[in-house]
């Protein structure tokens, strides 16, 4: 303990990457804002290009920053203390991601247990139902929205079953957590083949998951009529699974980078923060899916 404390602190020199990252986020924010306005309002403008420029710059920044980081790490500049800082930083980052998903889960729970029953007349809302949304009945999945109830009276969408693709996807993601775990074990026990094969398998599983998720979206839009704007059922379905899907995509990319680094032998059984962080991220994404599968699909 005392020994560790007495290690040298590593204070990095000046770096150009952070401010480039700030410019990238600026372009992304301006671009995304204008792109949203332009596509939904049928205007022309440079939103899309600004957004893409932002992403490109972000990519350059991340590459540069990570390269810098990897070089420093490989030349042994880092101390155990810095390793702890990174690990803790990653844990807190994942906690912030948990809270981000919590906002959308919160919306889902609120809609299911409060707003929909109340619109259906529960609690002291009988007259709201009678006067404003006559004929609306509280159900979940919400197929006939209050607006449908007072206009056509018919469902504008069908429900997404949990059997089929979602179930397969659950199995895939759960399996991928297991393969990644044993890849990690392989890394720690210096079993290179085990590491490479299982890490590769995890990446393949991640890709299959994303591919199937896209299939499911096509199925939802084309066959079921379940769309982003199909009332709160569609809203929560697409935002929750959509943000999750983005996280899986990002996680898969991270795993690919890790694959490259394992290939080059960057990690030692003791010192592999990047691998550890990537694997935590993957397990987190997996847990989110289990929650999703439960609350969005099954219940």
């Amino acid at each position, binding site marked *: 303990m005392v020994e560790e404390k007495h290690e040298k*602190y590593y204070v990095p*020199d*000046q770096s150009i990457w*952070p401010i480039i990252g700030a410019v990238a986020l600026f372009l992304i924010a301006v671009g995304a804002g*204008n792109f949203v306005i332009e596509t939904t309002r049928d205007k022309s403008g440079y939103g899309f290009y600004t957004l893409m420029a932002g992403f490109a710059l972000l990519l350059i920044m991340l590459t540069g920053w990570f390269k810098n980081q990897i070089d420093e790490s490989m030349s042994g500049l880092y101390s155990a203390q810095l390793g702890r800082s990174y690990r803790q930083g990653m844990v*807190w980052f994942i906690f912030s991601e948990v809270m981000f998903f919590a*906002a959308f889960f919160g919306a889902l729970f*609120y809609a299911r247990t409060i707003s929909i029953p109340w619109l259906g007349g529960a609690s002291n809302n009988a007259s709201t139902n009678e006067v404003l949304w006559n004929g609306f009945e509280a159900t979940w999945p919400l197929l006939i929205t209050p607006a449908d109830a007072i206009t056509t009276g018919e469902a504008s969408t069908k429900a997404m079953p949990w059997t089929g693709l979602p179930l397969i996807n659950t199995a895939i993601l759960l399996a991928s957590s297991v393969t990644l775990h044993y890849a990690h074990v392989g890394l720690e026990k210096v079993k290179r083949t085990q590491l490479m094969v299982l890490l590769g398998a995890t990446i393949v599983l991640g890709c299959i998951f994303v591919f199937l998720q896209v299939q499911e979206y096509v199925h939802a839009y084309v066959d079921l009529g379940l769309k982003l704007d199909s009332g709160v059922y569609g809203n929560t379905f697409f935002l929750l699974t959509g943000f999750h899907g983005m996280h899986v995509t990002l996680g898969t990319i991270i795993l690919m980078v890790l694959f490259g680094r394992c290939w080059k032998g960057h990690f030692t059984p003791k010192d592999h923060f990047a691998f550890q962080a990537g694997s935590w991220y993957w397990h987190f994404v997996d847990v989110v899916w289990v929650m999703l599968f439960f609350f969005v699909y099954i219940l």
Partner: protein
Amino acid sequence: MSTETLNDAHDSPDGHDAHHEHHIPKGILRWLFTTNHKDIGTLYLWFAFIMFLIGGAMAMVIRAELFQPGLQIVDPHFFNQMTTVHGLIMVFGAVMPAFTGLANWMIPMMIGAPDMALPRMNNWSFYILPFAFIILLSSLFMDGGGPAFGWTFYAPLSTQYSGDSTALFVFSVHIMGISSIMGAINVVVTILNMRAPGMTYMKMPLFVWTWLITAFLLIAVMPVLAGAVTMVLTDKFFGTSFFDAAGGGDPVMFQHIFWFFGHPEVYIMILPAFGIISAIVPTFSRKRLFGYASMVYATASIALLSFIVWAHHMFTTGMPVAAEMFFMFATMLISVPTGVKVFNWVATMWRGSLTFEVPMMFAIAFIVLFTIGGLSGLMLAIIPADFQYHDTYFVVAHFHYVLVTGALFSIMAAVYYWLPKWTGKMFDITLAKWHFWCSLISVNVLFFPMHFVGLAGMPRRIPDYALQFADFNKWISIGGFAFGLSQLIFLALIIKACRKIGEPVSDQVWEGAEGLEWEIPSPAPYHTFSTPPLIK
């Protein structure tokens, strides 16, 4: 545990050796690429100050319009943009960055660390902010104007009755959030991981403690804000109906999500202030802080309770009575730990050998005036009373007492307290006293009458008002202009201090000051604690 064997941090394998210590990069690039906690702290503080002046200018527009009843200077839509952007700027652009700046400067020095744990990310967190505010401010010039739905951006104001610039508002809040989260992660990791040997948790200065807990709150709730703006975006542009009953959603759901973020957010803006006051009061009382441990526990319980009181902002939305009661009692419960703190500060001063240097003047003003804000908060927490006060100037009076004479005064107290350590020179005390007295008097002329007009029923966020409120509003506006002008004294003082004009100060600066930051030279060298000190 001895420290003799410690090496110099810069004596590192990459060839940078000890002479590096004395080498400070020059010119603009120093500031753009910096990884130094003191530089970044300075950047945060200047940014916050500039935002404070811009947000302040907007407040002047608001007060000019409200000087007389009737519509005279700006049109109502522009008035709404001013109240909205004033609020957003003061919360996210002035108070929060100022506290982050203080954290950057002081936390490493207080815990004996050479820098923040993640210095490059620190630079990134800072530089996102100016960009975020460029986006927010420039949205004011777009077709249909900028955000005009209040800093709380309630649906359906923000989803159905807002301009298209809402998209830019949403993304600027997103990147502000990214900046805050990274800043907060940095603070937590620094505190958990970079303390000098022997600096146990219960030996940490309270500013460090309060910031640790603040950073936890930030990491927990900024993502929820991100979720809220995202749903506003999709509701407005992509046809979702989270906040629209027609699709099974509910506008009140917006308020729940927003205030789940919003209430902890107000504590994010006050906990570091508690830390600052807990540092200043003992120094000028020449006594140790009364009840250190109880301060720590009080801070932690305020933070935990702040997660279960959010609906006190929503008493008039027609929640079930059981829920209203729950939130009322939980809210009142929060004033217990808050009261503990006020008690401890007063008890610290009790029989101390008090002197009234400028930081102490601000600290005492804080204690008195923040307590007024706390008491009006308690009044607002009473459901039936709130039915009358809600959305009136009484609420405006409440939150300006806690935020201006609370958070902002604590920031000024902190600047006066640590400025000599930063520059090595004593600031201009005459100017500082002018700043203090002008601010103290004008701020009360500005905010105290708001209680009365609020109780009499004057609604907030309206550019016009009934005749009977005219006299009070005239005085409120006069107080407002005076308070605005007083801050120019502060600006002059800071510029003078940055040009290093003034008497040199000792390392300890203030006679009763204790703590690691007072043991290093004044001005604090560019790199401090390259080798950790030993705390006994």
